[in-house]
């Protein structure tokens, strides 16, 4: 940057800072899928944040906090970057949060350092996102985190030949790599690895290919939304379940709002995930009660609302630690070894990676009191992100 440009941006940032101090409202820009096929998850961001605000008030140490929501709609990095830029330059937000899709989070990352804005990622699950900027913290999960236990479970359940089917984008490729590495290290064989374009809705040909590969188990990851339901239905209706081929997935494929659509044939599907709506703990019970009180529908709750709830916790903490000033280094330092009990279970932020460390649960789809749930049957304690962590 030329010296002039540096001066200009320094001046601009000064203006920003003084503007914030005068109004004393700290703005947080939330970028989520507020419309389109993935709108449910944007809504979950809002439900989670609203629940946190309802419990903890709209003020932190005398500063008003205001959340501004913007729509990322679909995996559209150019649009997301523009939105983030606008939130920073025009709305003068002090924190950014959200990001449902990995490509969108990646596009936002380069803006953070120049604008001194921390970003709390509330969904996007490719491991490398946190490495793109020192100002990123993540409260959701990564593919590696959830997939490694899936591969371990597959081995334990006697799987020998696995077919992997993932969406053809960052997190899908992460999931494929994580499963392949873990499963092959334990002596299993991956007989087929299929990458499916994000827009695919008809999975019948893919099921045939898997069937012909002779796999005894399928591992899949697709971003939860319209494709996941189609995938599970294709698995059931093409007779793979009847033929004894098992389905393993991360929880994205069997989110609670989708379970009624999958129906009883889905009973027994295994998945590994960091949050189940049916998780039995006082924290989760009060979280769900809070959402209900705020007018939310508990049947629509997914993991994104919990990530948003915990993300709001981090933002409040950062505001408190910096006394409302724009100081990303201090803000990040304040949260990067936090430990607390989330509705999903005990969690902590890993200081080395700024990614959340959490329990991952093995669950199976079960019918309890006439309602399909993901029943937790095994816990993998305090999982780090296996790609980033040196453990």
């Amino acid at each position, binding site marked *: 940057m030329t010296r002039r440009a540096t001066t200009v941006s320094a001046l601009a940032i000064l203006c920003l800072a003084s503007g914030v101090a005068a109004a004393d409202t700290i703005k947080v820009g939330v970028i989520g899928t507020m419309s*389109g096929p993935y*709108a449910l998850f944007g809504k979950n961001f809002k439900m989670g944040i609203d629940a946190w605000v309802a419990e903890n008030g709209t003020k932190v140490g005398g500063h008003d906090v205001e959340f501004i929501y913007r729509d990322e709609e679909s995996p559209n990095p150019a649009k997301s970057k523009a939105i983030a830029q606008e939130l920073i330059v025009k709305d003068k937000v002090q924190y950014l949060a959200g990001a449902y899709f990995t490509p969108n989070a990646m596009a936002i990352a380069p803006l953070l350092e120049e604008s001194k804005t921390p970003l709390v990622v509330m969904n996007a699950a490719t491991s490398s996102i946190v490495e793109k900027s020192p100002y990123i913290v993540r409260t959701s999960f990564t593919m590696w985190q959830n997939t490694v236990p899936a591969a371990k479970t597959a081995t334990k359940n006697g799987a020998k030949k696995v077919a992997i089917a993932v969406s053809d984008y960052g997190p899908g490729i992460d999931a494929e790599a994580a499963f392949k590495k873990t499963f092959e290290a334990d002596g299993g064989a991956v007989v087929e690895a299929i990458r499916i374009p994000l827009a*695919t*809705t008809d999975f019948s*040909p*893919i099921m045939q290919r898997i069937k012909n590969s002779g796999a005894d188990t399928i591992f899949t990851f697709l971003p939860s939304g*319209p494709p996941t339901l189609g995938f599970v239905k294709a698995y059931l*209706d*093409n007779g793979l379940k009847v033929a004894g081929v098992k389905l393993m997935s991360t929880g994205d494929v069997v989110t609670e709002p989708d379970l009624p659509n999958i129906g009883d044939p889905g009973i027994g599907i295994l998945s590994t995930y960091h949050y189940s709506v049916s998780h039995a703990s006082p924290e989760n019970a009060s979280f769900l009660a809070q959402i209900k009180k705020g007018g939310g529908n508990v049947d629509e709750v997914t993991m994104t609302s919990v990530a948003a709830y915990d993300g709001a916790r981090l933002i409040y903490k950062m505001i408190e630690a910096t006394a409302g000033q724009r100081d990303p280094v201090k803000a990040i330092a304040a949260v990067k070894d936090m430990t607390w009990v989330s509705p999903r279970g005990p969690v902590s932020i890993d200081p080395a990676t700024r990614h959340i460390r959490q329990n991952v649960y093995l669950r199976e789809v079960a019918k309890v009191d006439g309602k399909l749930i993901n029943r937790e049957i095994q816990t993998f304690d305090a999982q780090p992100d296996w790609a980033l962590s040196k453990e």
Partner: protein
Amino acid sequence: MRIVLSIATDALAYGMVLFIISIGLSIMMGLMRVVNLAHGAFAMIGGYLASYAIRDLNAPYGLAILIAVIGAIVVSIPFEALLYRRIYRKSDPLIQVLMTIGITFVIIGVVNYIFGPSLKSIPLPNALSGPLDIGFRMVPTHRVFVIACGLITALLLWLLIEKTEFGIKLRASVDHSDMADALGIRTEIIYAVTFALAIGLGAFGGVVGAEILPIEPFYALRYMVTFLVVVSVGGAGSITGALSASLLLGLADTTGKYLAPEFGEFFFYLTVIIIVFLFPRGLFGRSHA
């Protein structure tokens, strides 16, 4: 061999869905010469109505299809009377494209406002869900149902167009509209009835095809070009054309998905380009001299 049969079965099912939805558009484009990009929007309306009927009114599947078809036709009547009539047979394609894109956007907006943005499933009756063993593989029972629907639709349409008086008038209007008019055939009535028939078929296809093309607000936009492409590859106004184009493109798409899923719709559109180059009027298109 099993792989070939396997792909063929999936291709047949997908092709039949394309056929049921596209045949309405094909008839419309053959008779009224309207490039109707909003056809998918009406199919989507059918899907939403069926989903609503089953999930909220507990209607049986058959009744839901009926509600969807009739409902979509009722919704389409004001569009026909106020808008489509202006562009029958005269305007250049650009005008038609713009108006029908406009109609699509309006329908997407309204549907989202009423039903919300999420995916709407159309629950199947037990008889149609689950897998069915057809010897060399298991197929979803529903696919077999779809294939049967497609064949019956093709047969009934053929009877309607070849064997009834309406069919004779319709063919007369397609081939020589001025002459038909002069002979006392009320072309505007033929147009209105054909429009309703086209929309009804679209809605029917939207419902029975929902397992393959799931119903959500962007359905109308997502498959907008797919249906148009099927019709123009087959040749507007031809049942045989629409059927063969649907099956051919269904085969291209399914084979592509089976052999190289990461290519997406590449093979589908490659086939389209090749066919359009070889047969600019479509496989079974008539010359509109």
